[in-house]
């Protein structure tokens, strides 16, 4: 088939042609970027925390009229209260293990700092690596379900306690594989020494866990999302958090037992609806905005593609009606049905081709603009190429019905008056 007659005909329908091409270009630009956003959000949500998330829940509670954590005496009292709680929870029939912990991955309440090879390094300095701390005890590994890949776990003798705002040396720590690789690329982190938060006192790395995400789920934590440091210390303050692993399948029962048990230990405390929550809730809450954005972008893409496809059907149908007689003439002159079908298909391919070329430029431009104004990364070419193919396919699908109708115009039309 020659392109010349198609181009000649298109010149007669400049406005319509330009409009379809423009629509395809805009649709491609928006859909590419929207789908890219969806892809990014899905990647984020699918990150694994390094926890065994089933049967895990968190208890956050606050004591009323608690002793002052700033006095040595108050710290001892608070620690005794915390140990009492831990003992009570550990005795529950549906509970497998309990660890005090200041936060959990995705909880978005974090204690961040930095670690360095050198003592006395300035916080935020260049040779520092950011990290998020988990202050916990010897039941941490079994409770969180984190996997130890090198060295040893904490034992009861390692565990210290301190007031929440007290400054204290940290003789030992367990770090994540990712942080170990960053600090000691040779893979020999266990037994090595690092310095936390600009301290002059060394911290010996005694173990490495495969993976443990930091509490921050937002993008500000992206740079150090896997750089967690575990310190064997109970923090004493007027509040405490306990990570609890229920026995398999006993999550609900274990959660229900918490409030009565803790109130029995000490009724002067705050436990509300939010105090006992399964990890699945923490995860859902952390990613709610991401999931929502993905759904919203998905809905808009769907509407966009439908509108564009419907627009192509509408305008092509109009053209078919307009060219009724010419089609009849071509048929009478010997064109086969398939020739007419191909004519409209190639015509659409040409218009869509121009549209996607402009669309690719618009998509990249929009991506650049989003990158300069919002948190966005460069769109991979695979997204754009997939978008191009999808747009061409949608164009062809949309044109098929009107083109079929055109090919069914009988040759006899040519003999009738217009």
């Amino acid at each position, binding site marked *: 088939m020659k392109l010349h007659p198609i181009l000649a005909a298109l010149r007669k329908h400049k*406005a*319509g042609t330009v*409009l*379809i091409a423009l*629509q395809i270009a*805009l*649709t491609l630009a*928006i859909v590419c970027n*929207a789908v890219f*956003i969806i892809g990014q959000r899905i990647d984020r949500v699918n990150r694994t925390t390094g926890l065994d998330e089933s049967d895990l829940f968190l208890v956050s509670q*606050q*004591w*009323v*009229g*608690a002793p*002052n*954590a*700033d006095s040595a005496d108050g710290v001892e009292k608070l620690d005794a209260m915390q140990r009492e709680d831990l003992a009570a929870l550990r005795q529950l029939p549906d509970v497998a293990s309990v660890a005090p912990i200041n936060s959990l991955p995705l909880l978005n309440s974090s204690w961040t700092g930095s670690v360095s090879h050198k003592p006395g390094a*300035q*916080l*935020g*300095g260049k040779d520092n690596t950011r990290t998020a701390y988990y202050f916990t005890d010897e039941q941490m590994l079994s409770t969180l379900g984190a996997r130890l890949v090198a060295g040893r776990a904490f034992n009861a003798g390692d565990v210290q306690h301190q007031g929440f*705002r*007290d*400054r204290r040396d940290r003789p030992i720590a367990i770090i994540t594989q990712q942080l170990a690789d960053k600090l000691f690329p040779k893979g020999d982190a266990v037994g090595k020494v690092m310095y936390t*938060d*600009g301290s002059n006192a060394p911290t010996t790395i005694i173990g490495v866990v495969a993976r443990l995400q930091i509490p921050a789920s937002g993008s500000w934590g992206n740079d150090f999302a896997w750089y967690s440091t575990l310190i064997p210390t109970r923090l004493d*303050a*007027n509040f405490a958090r306990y990570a609890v692993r229920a026995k398999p399948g006993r999550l609900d029962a274990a959660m229900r037992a918490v409030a009565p048990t803790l*109130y029995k230990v000490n*009724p*002067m*405390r*705050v*436990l*509300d609806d939010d105090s006992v929550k399964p990890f699945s809730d923490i995860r859902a809450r952390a990613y*709610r*905005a991401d*999931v*929502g*954005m993905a*759904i*919203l*972008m998905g*809905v*808009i893409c769907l*509407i*966009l593609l439908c*509108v*564009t496809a*419907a*627009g192509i059907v*509408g*305008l092509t149908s*109009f053209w078919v*009606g307009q060219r009724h007689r010419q089609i009849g003439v071509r048929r009478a002159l010997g064109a086969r049905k398939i020739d007419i079908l191909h004519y409209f298909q190639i015509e659409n391919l040409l218009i869509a081709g121009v549209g996607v070329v402009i669309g690719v430029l618009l998509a990249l431009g929009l991506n650049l603009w*989003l990158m300069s*104004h*919002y*948190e966005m990364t460069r769109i991979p070419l695979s997204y754009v190429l997939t978008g191009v193919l999808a747009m061409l396919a949608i164009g062809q699908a949309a044109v098929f019905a009107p083109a079929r109708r055109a090919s069914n115009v009988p040759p006899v039309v040519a003999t009738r008056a217009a």
Partner: protein
Amino acid sequence: MFSYYLELALRSLRRSPGLTALMVLAIGFGVAASMTTWSVFRAVSGDPIPWKSSQLFVPQIDNWGPNGRSDDGEPPNAMGYTDAMALMRDHRAKRQSAMYQISPSVVPAEAGKHPLNVSGHAVYGEFFPMLDVPFKYGSGWSASDDTNRAMVAVISGKLNQKLFGGASSVGKTVNIEGKDYRVVGVLDDWNPQPRFYDVVNTGGFSTNGDDVFLPFLTAIQASMPNDGNTNCNAVPEESGFVGLQHSECVWIAYMAELDSAAAATSYRNYLNDYAREQQQAGRFRWAPNGRLRNLPEWLDNQHVVPSDTKVSLLVALGLLLVCLVNTVGLLLAKFLRRSGEIGVRRALGAQRAAIYAQFLTEAGIVGLAGGVLGLLLTGAGVASVGWVLPRDIAALARVDVSLLLLTLLVAVVATMLAGLYPTFRASRVQPAWQLKSN
């Protein structure tokens, strides 16, 4: 004449129901997507205190120096205790308040009721008149209550309902963190969005408002810990809450009321002088790098409007644009199909203006129908944002009269704009040519 065009338009639209439905659907969806995202954007970008926002200022002091600045040279977005206290002492603004977020427990007087946790802020007495906080009963506390570290409290209407059954509790005591405070005021409904007085700690939006306000120095004396963010450029040298107060860690929000440009300028100079004094005293080893932004500038600087909201709005507007391009194409097809009819009208003496009126009426009707559909879909959209957006933000999106009117207006105006080019083409139809070929 209008009714005649109306009739013509309806007849024409009825002749090609498929095409008409397509246009109405496209406009409806395009407008609804834009309006739904707009309703969210409007809710989160609104001015929480429009009558006063240009007089409220947030000062920033650079107590960290070059190493602690962000990439664009911004000083910390909160204050350390030393600087906040110095600014309060100097008292250079008409009204001002340092504040920090607290989360104390409250013990109900009634026996058998479990203690509850409330969120609140420790503030100075000037906080209430400065922000025009509405009171249901009583009022805020005085400057002497501030300096005397009086055991007084202002509670929210909600907490008053919970603890005192809604009756005036002014003069009664409330047990906060194990200590008795005298209630001096009960707030009326007050939950501004964004929580503009402390966006650094609240992130801007929260369905639950603050339930309790205590005098700043009273809370400090009671060692009531800071529940918001604490950022440090170095680990405090001393332990405990006192150590935090002596450190350069930043954790205090600050707001000042300056009711004229001159007052703002002189306050800016004051901040500069203060930083220079600190430099001379050797505490800061760098030139002054303070900031003084009014509330709208501050909210913008702190990116209170989530970027997701802006991107969603942009993408939805893109959808509307595509729908309009689509409508231009379809209207063009529809109008030009009636070239014969136009030719006859023109030959019978109709002016170009009459053709314009006729076809723009038709476009307007499509727009109106699209707008009505858009109204329904916007209603459904706003009702379902709760499923996809974070709760604190979704709760703010509302359908109101202005949104409904805007939906209709956008639909009609946009469609008529889309109809301009097709109408122009229709008006250019040569009557003689049409009559001849028929």
